[in-house]
């Protein structure tokens, strides 16, 4: 009888221990750099060619976007590209206009220095300049909706935000 009680107590202690001090979740290492500036806002992920085949990666990222209820978008950029870095700078500075425009999006960034420009690895992602954004569907495939920096002129948040907001969320109602 005492033995049963002892075993029961040990079992309950283990359950309580697990409940009170949950183990840190050990997920598989992320194949990409992940940045979530604001949980309720938007996500930015950077993929590298070493992470795997692009279409498979995009399918996976689109699923993650769907799980978060966000719109998956591919952005091509580069460290030497002033307009690309202007967007990044505005995001890091938490510019309200940009944060609002990007709300609800899941941005998958691809550096053209890594992925190439018109490279076969990019499948049918074709573009003439960066930054450029491609909307993805739930399977990580292009929807055909594209926009590039040429749409907003000088690269300041006041110009970028309304254009990107309309691209991401449709025209203002």
């Amino acid at each position, binding site marked *: 009888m005492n033995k049963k009680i002892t075993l029961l107590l040990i079992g309950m202690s283990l359950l309580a221990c697990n409940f009170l001090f949950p183990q840190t979740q050990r997920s598989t290492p992320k194949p990409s750099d992940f940045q979530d500036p604001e949980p309720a806002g938007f996500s930015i992920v950077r993929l590298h060619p070493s992470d795997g085949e692009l279409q498979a990666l995009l399918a996976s990222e689109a699923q993650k976007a769907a799980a978060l209820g966000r719109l998956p978008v591919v952005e091509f950029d*580069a460290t*030497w590209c*002033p*307009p690309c*870095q202007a967007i990044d700078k505005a995001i890091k500075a938490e510019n309200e206009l940009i944060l609002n425009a990007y709300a609800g999006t899941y941005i998958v960034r691809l550096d053209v220095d890594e992925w190439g420009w018109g490279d076969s690895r990019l499948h049918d992602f074709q573009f003439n300049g*960066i*930054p450029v954004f491609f909307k993805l569907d739930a399977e990580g495939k292009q929807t055909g909706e594209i926009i590039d*920096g040429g749409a907003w002129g*000088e690269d300041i948040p006041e*110009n970028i935000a309304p254009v990107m907001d309309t691209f991401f969320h449709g025209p203002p109602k």
Partner: protein
Amino acid sequence: MKNKLHHRFIIASLVALVFGSFVSCTPAKEERISLASFTENYVEVAIHLKKTSTGGHILSATFTPPEGYHMYSKDIPITGTDGLGRPTLLELTSDSLMKSGGTLSESVNAEVPDFGPEELLVYPVGAVTLSLPVNLPPGNDWVEDELSITFMACSASLCKPPVVGKIVPVRVPGAEAFAQK
């Protein structure tokens, strides 16, 4: 009769004066040969060698970006300003037979950009020509030579990829060969 002749003489003198002035004011013709031309990353590059009226030689490269695009100043760092942009450069390499005879000059002055880092100097929208005085290799023959080109084109909000240190093979005349041209 005498008046008529006098009148004709005056007209002929005036015509000669106008024509003479026109000819003397026209700058001495510079001999120019095309060394190479190509389009890469949406920018047209044309490289020429010319003999100046004073007998010197100038190597020049004209960079023509797409409409609405600009090139970056030759004076920004090769790795860009804080990593941004790339300079426009026409350079001789250590293997070049032509030797530099002066400093690189630009056809238009670079400007502070309307937006972005102030140090990231840009040329006005459109083409820019860089010129470098050179000493041609001695001799009477044409020889295989090379030079190096760097550039990148952007508009206010869109960029084409840079070309850095592209080696361009060229065939240049020896100093004596060009002197006889």
